[in-house]
């Protein structure tokens, strides 16, 4: 199953490589990994999307917890949570009909056009991974110049929070 694991880790130079190294050394999957500092500058927050059987996921969380740099861990998938991912797409947009078609599509997906040239649009879109996939599907293959995806972030619903 697909799991979203959120971590608070020491904001130390080696922390990221320890976590990435753990996944490669033990042969675990990483679908995406995002990391940035938190309101507390000594802590980073990491979101890892991984896929595995219950047994593997249990090992992943235990092994992550064992790392000295990992301060706290939460498997979002165990409760109610919100998942979002952000994406930029640079699209070939030449000719009036093409340009208005992209605009229309973007409206439907609540995507925003954030950069415009004579021949391209750059679109920003936030949502679940599935929504981003769906948006890409509506574009013609030849029209996509570049895609940047952030990887997923997650947060629990309700009052429960991953804090110290």
């Amino acid at each position: 199953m697909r799991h979203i694991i959120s971590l608070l880790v020491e904001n130390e130079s080696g922390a990221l490589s320890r976590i990435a190294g753990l996944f490669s050394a033990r042969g675990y999957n990483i679908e995406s990994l995002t990391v940035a500092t938190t309101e507390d500058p000594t802590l980073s927050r990491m979101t890892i999307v991984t896929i595995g059987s219950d047994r593997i996921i249990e090992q992943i969380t235990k092994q992550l917890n064992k790392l000295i740099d990992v301060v706290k861990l939460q498997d979002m998938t165990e409760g109610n949570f919100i998942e979002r991912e952000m994406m930029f797409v640079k699209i070939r947009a030449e000719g009036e009909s093409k340009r208005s078609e992209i605009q229309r599509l973007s409206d439907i997906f609540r995507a925003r056009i954030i950069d415009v040239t004579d021949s391209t649009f750059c679109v920003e879109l936030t949502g679940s991974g599935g929504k981003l996939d769906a948006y890409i599907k509506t574009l013609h293959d030849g029209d996509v110049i570049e895609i940047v995806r952030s990887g997923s972030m997650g947060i629990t619903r309700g009052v429960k929070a991953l804090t110290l």
Partner: protein
Amino acid sequence: MELSGSEILVQFLKDEGVEFIFGYPGGAVLHIYDALHQQDDVKHILVRHEQGATHAADGYARATGKPGVALVTSGPGATNAITGIATAYMDSIPMVVISGQVPSGMIGSDAFQEVDAIGCTRPCVKHNFLVKDINKLADTLKKAFYVATTGRPGPVLVDLPKDITAPQIKVPYKYPKKVSMRSYNPTVKGHPRQVKKAVEVLLSAKRPIIYSGGGVILGNASEELRKVTHKLGFPITETLMGLGGFPGTDKQNLGMLGMHGTYEANMAMHDCDVLFAVGARFDDRITGDTSKFCPHATIIHIDIDPASISKTINADIPIVGEVKTVLSEMVKILAEKDLPKSRSSALESWWKKIESWRKQDCLAYDKTSKHIKPQSVIETLYEVTGGDAYITSDVGQHQMFAAQFYKFDKPRRWINSGGLGTMGFGLPAAMGVKLAFPNSDVACVTGEGSIQMCIQELSTCLQYDLPIKVINLNNRYLGMVRQWQEFFYEKRYSHSYMDALPDFVKLAESYGHVGIRVEDPADLQSAMEEAFSLKDRLVFLDVITDQTENVYPMIHAGAAHNSMEISPQHKKKLGAINPDGELA
């Protein structure tokens, strides 16, 4: 007190109670060596190869329970140390390795003797630290020792850039008595409800077995294990790492289990209805095929490391905690219970079955051979040392014979590389042990292959007067490799023959030691006695052993516990055995 980084390191080691530091100098650690030179509280042992430094520190740690400390220079010093670090990591040995690093400003520039020691060691340390600020040096060192020695122990590396240790820069130093790390809180007490539940299951077992591992030794829990095992009256089997955790000569002990475990231990594992795993990690050399492992058993598992529980084998009653505290909790619960004086009838018939397996004498070997049998060497070693020596070993057949035939009654007497299986471990490890216990007999059981991997340490032994006894089971083969080739590759002995061997007697002599060769079984006893009578000399006993001997029993990789390859002597007895594997 204002001290330089080098002085802080040395003073800290002294304050931390470190007796010995095993090391080898080089450019990046010269400031540290200068500081070491100006004191004699911390004794530095100059090894001949950094692998030797880490193994010696490791041997010291295994024998004493205190952390071993090694000091190496940057670049090749650090990379040479890695085999020893990985060895300690796999067996959860507390160790702190200090490595020199190029000056902070040059890190990342491919400077002379620069290697990313943090990156290189990351997969085989419990944790590592790069010191970037001299003001954090003392605290970092304290954290290193704390992490190495608590929870599930392990090696920790501290990488020290040369500028941090420079004599010109001095900062105030105070020994940090306490550490606090928000991200590291090793669990200690087992969950009371789980412990109670485990005791209930144990008391209702009909065919129980206790399977104890290295965690008992590391956690100093042998006394508690002995009490629980005696109270329950259960059979117990130990892993390679757990030998000595429970007395080897005790009737309840079935000996080692696993790939080269005893017939009775492996058969009992296969048939048990309750498996009580204590500080053991269900390694593949123990379990064989996991799908056929203990097929009828309810599994209780105590381990300090949550990640060890249900990793390869699912535990029905997991107990995360220090083995010692959990077992003493069990002792208490059992004492409060009104247990019947005699064994239950179910347990009685279980023991009867076990005794019938035991009677087959699976370790029997040909005692009429005109060649020296490796097993007889270990038996002689056992007799001559009164079963009370520290035995280190290398890796191969000799290691298995030592594990099978030396009955360790005490913990920390059997010192071998179990997890990584590192040839070359035995001799340097013995140095660490001998330094810690100068008045005890210390023997290194080795093979002509393994000993050559760290033979240079014979020189260290002379320099520091370490009268170790090296017992070389010289079969002129990488015996364990040869055995696998005999069984699984139709006797195609590809590169397992040790040609062009040195004359080990002369080699020992040229290092300034005593060398004795034994070729005739009749001379074995007297040669062994002579070796141990030379109290203040290192003796290299080169025993020319039977080239064709194999280690039995053997569970083939991936097989079940009840399908073992047994010795020809054992097979002879099979005529008298019924299909259930019991003696008629």
